[in-house]
């Protein structure tokens, strides 16, 4: 259950950022591509994190993979892809951290 909730939260947050970044693209296209990118990176990130830890290295790897996928799927330049990937991943990681803190206190 945690698996699906975690995925859904990440997907929805990144979707908002994708909508802001790619205003000119069709809505369905954004939803589909965002879903595909997250379906690829989210399970891999969690799998490697549960096995090895190394949060920052895994997060960096995910950011780089997402940059590449954004460039290839949205046909955008690397600067925009970098910005979208950074904002999306930092936002989801921060919200995860916030939920973590709220559970503690």
């Amino acid at each position: 259950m945690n698996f699906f909730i975690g995925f859904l939260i990440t997907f929805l947050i990144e979707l908002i950022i994708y909508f802001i970044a790619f205003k000119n693209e069709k809505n369905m296209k954004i939803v589909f591509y965002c879903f595909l990118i997250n379906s690829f990176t989210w399970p891999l990130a969690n799998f490697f994190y549960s096995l090895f830890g190394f949060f920052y290295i895994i997060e960096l790897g995910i950011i780089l993979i997402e940059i590449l996928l954004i460039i290839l799927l949205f046909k955008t330049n690397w600067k925009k892809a970098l910005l979208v990937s950074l904002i999306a991943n930092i936002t989801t990681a921060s919200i995860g951290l916030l939920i973590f803190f709220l559970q503690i206190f």
Partner: protein
Amino acid sequence: MKKILTLLLIFIAGFILIFPLINADSIQPGYKNIWINNIITNSGDFPNYIFVSYGHTGPFCHIEIVEENGKISSNYYKLCTLSVYAIPKDNFNQSEINEYNNGTFSIQETENYLQSIGAKEVIKNIKLSSEVSKISTKESVTRSYTIDLAKTLQEPDKVEVKQNSLIYFYIIVPLIALIIILSIIFIKKKKK
């Protein structure tokens, strides 16, 4: 663009500083406790010895006999610092052990008793449990020890990790996503 990147960098720096502070002795939210099975693989090679485990740390860290199949009891408080001792069969007295388990003996007194009956510490610092993420694929861990009466082992010879079915999601979902992504990229290139 430059301003956004500067802000992002400041945010990343803050994030890196805060994240390592999250550490607590209790189970952290989002984590679960998995028990570790500890097994002695060659306990049958020493018919003249009885193997017992002892937790050192305090209450709920009593003395327990290692099972005939070599399984070390996990019936301990998770913070016990578990050791396994080999006691010569001739010196072993179950009622004395029971006395130490039920009485109000200090850790030092219990250790002195074990020493007095010729108990040899063959394994020390045995891990009883491990904290993993709730979405971890780890289901259980088995640590196997091959003992030698002349040595005190600190690490197992073999560690087996049993994964749960979630591992298939972690592999199949990204694989399907990757196939679809590659297909889209391929079709786009072909259209050009």
